[in-house]
């Protein structure tokens, strides 16, 4: 069953007086449980496509559906609820909240989702951190952890609500190659065990090689794999 359906999605930005086209009417279907890479050079439209799928912004034309919901026709609050319940996010810069500990960072999405009772939140966050190998860093703040550890916390934060889909924008770009591979292996392992759909962007060939499917973008259009 497809979890993501992108139909003729185009995105144009207005930079001052100039129109810049980031996506040129792309079509994409992602099936449940896929481990898919969006590849392409900088400016090819990878992040824009992930932003559309995540509901961070709406397409200028065309449609994006996640689990059957048309994101363009959904209110901001309903989109927030959809993200809290059904999506996880991993960012290039980790984007952890610096004032919270690792455990609190992972617990945060649970507070936004009504999937689990409040009494289980702490335990679920702890389990997620154990799963990414950070059981010894529960009370560390992001500034006290390495880049790889921070990205593991971010992955724990993404998986803790047991989402249907995890979007990762260049998750290894700020990590050294070995750490990047470890992170990808971790994501792959979660995908294999939990059947969670992963869509991640990268321009690292070795990382691409670990994906089930690679969709290549160039200048806002698919050139391979869609």
């Amino acid at each position, binding site marked *: 069953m497809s979890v993501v359906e992108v139909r003729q999605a185009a995105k144009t930005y207005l930079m001052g007086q100039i129109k810049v086209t980031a996506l040129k009417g792309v079509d994409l279907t992602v099936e449940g449980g896929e481990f898919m890479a969006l590849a392409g050079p900088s400016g090819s439209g990878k992040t824009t496509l992930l932003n559309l799928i995540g509901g961070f912004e709406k397409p200028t034309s065309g449609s994006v559906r996640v689990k059957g919901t048309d994101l363009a026709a959904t209110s901001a609050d309903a989109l927030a609820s959809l993200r*809290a319940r059904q999506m996880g996010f991993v960012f290039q810069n980790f*984007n952890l909240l*610096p*004032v919270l500990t690792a455990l609190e960072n992972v617990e945060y999405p649970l*507070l936004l989702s009504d999937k689990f009772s409040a009494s289980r939140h702490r335990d679920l966050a702890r389990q997620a951190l154990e799963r990414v190998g950070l059981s010894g860093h529960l009370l560390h703040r992001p500034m006290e952890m390495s880049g790889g550890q921070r990205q593991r916390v971010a992955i724990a934060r993404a998986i803790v609500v047991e989402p249907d889909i995890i979007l990762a924008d260049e998750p290894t770009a700020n990590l050294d190659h070995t750490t990047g591979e470890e992170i990808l292996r971790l994501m792959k392992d979660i995908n294999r065990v939990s059947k969670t759909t992963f869509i991640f962007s990268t321009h690292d060939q070795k990382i691409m090689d670990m994906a089930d499917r690679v969709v290549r973008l160039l200048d806002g259009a698919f050139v391979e794999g869609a």
Partner: protein
Amino acid sequence: MMTLTIAIRNIFRHRTRTLITLFTIAFGCVAIIFVHGFFEDALREMRDSYIKAITGHLQVCKRGAFDKGFARPLDYIIDAPKDIISLIEKTPGVRVTSSRLVFSGLMSTGENSVSFLGQGVEPQKEQSVICRSSEDFIKLMRDRSFDKPDVGGVTIESGDSLEAKDTYSAILGKGLAKNLDIKPGDSIVLLTNTVGGSINAVDAKAKGIFYTGAKAFDDIALRVPLSTAQTLLRTEGVNNIVVRLFKTEDTQRVKELLEKAFKVHSWDLEIRTWDEMSDFYTKTKMLFYQQLFILEFVMTVVVLLSIFSTMNMAVLERTSEIGTIMALGTKRRGVIKLFMYEGLVLGIIGGLLGMGAGWVVIKMVSTIGIPMPPAPGMTFNWISQPDAPAKTYVLVFFLSVVAGLVSSIFPAYKASRLEIATALRGNA
């Protein structure tokens, strides 16, 4: 709970900036508390001076005397005051009463004459305070009680005060004495109409010069023993019974009790409270409170702008974090809540610090005392001992919290309207 945790921790991320903001809030609170305490003290000083020297807490007169009696005081004589005084003195809360015979006339030194407002008083019940040294003055200023068993309260600047055995003696208000260049020991002639309508005059000796808190009173007033006034006016009655209470706060309650009692006895009497008779005090109080309101307004705006600046800076610095929490599923109202909490927490902490610091400052200044020049309408220097009431502390805390909330509304709204994708890139 997590939102509040994040809000509190965010506040202390930039300690220097937060400390400056908290200091600004606390400083605003201290300024309001101090000025409020200072004004309250000045007003209390003024009020007590009026009560002690001029009005007492209550005055009882024949009906109509308060409105028409100034021009014709002799039309409102209470011929048999004994039973009335006895009833008043038995009323709970009443400390003492003193009968007065108020009249007006001309005072002459032989060469010059001026009009005066005379008060025939019972010297034993209206003990004057002699104050000729700085020690006497400080003692007088520190005495805020109504514990002494007298009504009195004029302060003798030179000469002596009236005594029970005195007959043809008078003490003169500072301004009145200055007008005719009268010194203690000088002879004066008091000329007035009697109750019967004829003219009468007595020779008297200026025994002392007094002052009160009210310049207007000191410029026209003199006091003679009640018996002298009665002889001069050819009456055995009085036209004014001054009532001193144990506590100023009981004024209204005692007034109501007396009014009921007078009604039972069918006595056609009227009662005025000290504040009804102290028009100048009431107007000064309004003026002080208006000034205080302006100060409160200015300080609240300063605090508001300070918190606004901090919150606005926070939104700019944390754009990426705002994008992250919205990406994770935080709704716009959740973002507003987060920043409103931060403003609220700043307001609460700043308000608490301000209340504490204000209390310490007030206590310190009050212990030392500030020598002050005469307040409006007063004739003597005084020592300010600021003492803000509890409601002032509540007010500054409330203002601080409201300022915290109000100043964070716009930054919070601005944060909640950020586009997620743009915010994630760190652009506001």
